[in-house]
């Protein structure tokens, strides 16, 4: 990876983290101002989203109709890479990544402090950075193969996501 590509990728990663944390701040401040929802409410949301994620309940949760233009896949110049990262990091400006993102968005409303919020949103940013980071490390046809590989892996990630959502639901109902 050349120095310019590495700098562009770092800018992309910083944009992803900034976008993700900016979105986290909104429900966090709302939770502080309006009060925290009860644990059972998060549990009920988690059960519903687990059923959607496991394809037991068929509900289109597609989010914004806007899609990332194919040409954006090339990270390019630093400011562009940062803006691209910020857009993806918000998770709201384009199509919804998965049902679990709604629970991630609801969590800051209930969290006891910012210290319990930012790791979750940085993990989301890391998840978004993994495919682009791998693509940056490779080039040309290798990059296209990586995207195909990630897409095929991503098809099965709903299983782990559904298990985690149900586990969280039980923990919140248990409280």
């Amino acid at each position, binding site marked *: 990876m050349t120095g310019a590509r590495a700098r562009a990728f770092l800018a992309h990663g910083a944009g992803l983290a900034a976008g993700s944390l900016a979105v986290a701040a909104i429900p966090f401040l709302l939770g502080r101002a309006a009060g925290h929802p009860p644990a059972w409410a998060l549990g009920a949301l988690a059960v519903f989203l687990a*059923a959607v994620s*496991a394809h037991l309940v068929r509900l289109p949760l597609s989010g914004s109709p806007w899609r990332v233009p194919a040409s954006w896949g090339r990270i390019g110049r630093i400011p562009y890479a940062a803006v691209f990262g910020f857009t993806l990091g918000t998770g709201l400006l384009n199509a919804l990544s998965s049902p679990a*993102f709604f629970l991630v968005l609801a969590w800051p409303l209930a969290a006891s402090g910012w210290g319990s919020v930012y790791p979750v949103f940085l993990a989301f940013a890391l*998840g978004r950075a993994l495919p682009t980071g791998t693509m940056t490390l490779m080039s040309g046809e290798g990059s296209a193969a990586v995207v195909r590989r990630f897409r095929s892996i991503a098809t099965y990630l709903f299983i782990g*996501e559904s*298990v985690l*959502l149900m586990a*969280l639901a*039980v923990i919140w109902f*248990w409280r």
Partner: protein
Amino acid sequence: MESTGVPAALVQPKQAHLTAASVVILLSGAATGFLLAAGNAGHEPAVVALLALAALLSGVQGLRTD
């Protein structure tokens, strides 16, 4: 409506398998949650770790919908 030419009897067992698989997935999650909660791992740091993992999986899945 135009027929797909696939007999309903061939489609329904596939749907039943999918539903059964979904129920198994959800029950596995519920069992994991019970084990964690019963093992006193239901405190906020554990919840944050599980949520972070879910967020990571959600982030990677974004590639599918972009």
